[in-house]
């Protein structure tokens, strides 16, 4: 009697899934065979990030004497290629501090990064078989 075939996620590389999940929101889940979930995550995280950019939030960088900017930079870099593209193509990555939506924009950008970092951890769990 042959054993049942392993689930698709069990035959995939954990490290590749995590790198893909970081690069593009949802791509790690797509790689692991969770296509619908991947599409939903891609839409949610990308929309959150684009809203943050549109609300003129700040793409944080580390500043001397401001230790909290280390955490904020780590969070924003969680969005992978979205963050890099926004830094390359935006006129003012530091945001517009006088804009009425500046604080909202910062919150959206930080949230998008943290969401994607959670997706990286989720992809790890799925690839290791800890989550269905």
């Amino acid at each position, binding site marked *: 009697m042959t054993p049942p075939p392993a689930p698709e996620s069990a035959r995939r590389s954990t490290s590749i899934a995590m790198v893909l999940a970081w690069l593009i929101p949802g791509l790690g889940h797509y790689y692991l065979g969770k296509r619908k979930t991947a599409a939903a995550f891609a839409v949610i995280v990308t929309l959150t990030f684009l809203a943050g950019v*549109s609300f003129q939030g700040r793409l944080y960088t580390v500043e001397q004497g401001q230790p909290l900017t280390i955490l904020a930079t780590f969070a924003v870099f969680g969005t992978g290629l979205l963050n890099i593209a926004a830094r390359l193509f935006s*006129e003012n990555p530091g945001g517009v501090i006088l804009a009425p939506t500046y604080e909202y924009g910062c919150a959206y950008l930080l949230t998008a990064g943290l969401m994607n970092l959670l997706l990286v951890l989720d992809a790890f769990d799925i690839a290791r078989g800890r989550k269905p």
Partner: protein
Amino acid sequence: MTALPMLALVPADHFLIMTLYAFLVSAFFAILWREDRRERWKLFGILMAALVGGGLAVAWLMYPFPR
């Protein structure tokens, strides 16, 4: 930073921005933490109500202290 033309149509309305944020966060965690469709909708509703209701409650509590 130049606002994206499509999203720039969203007005700078505090309640709308807060509700959009609550919607996105609720949808994200509902999909992440639940597998069953019914359970996802249930968690989405709870999170959405908590975030919007909590935001309104904090705003109401802060009303006597504008500065």
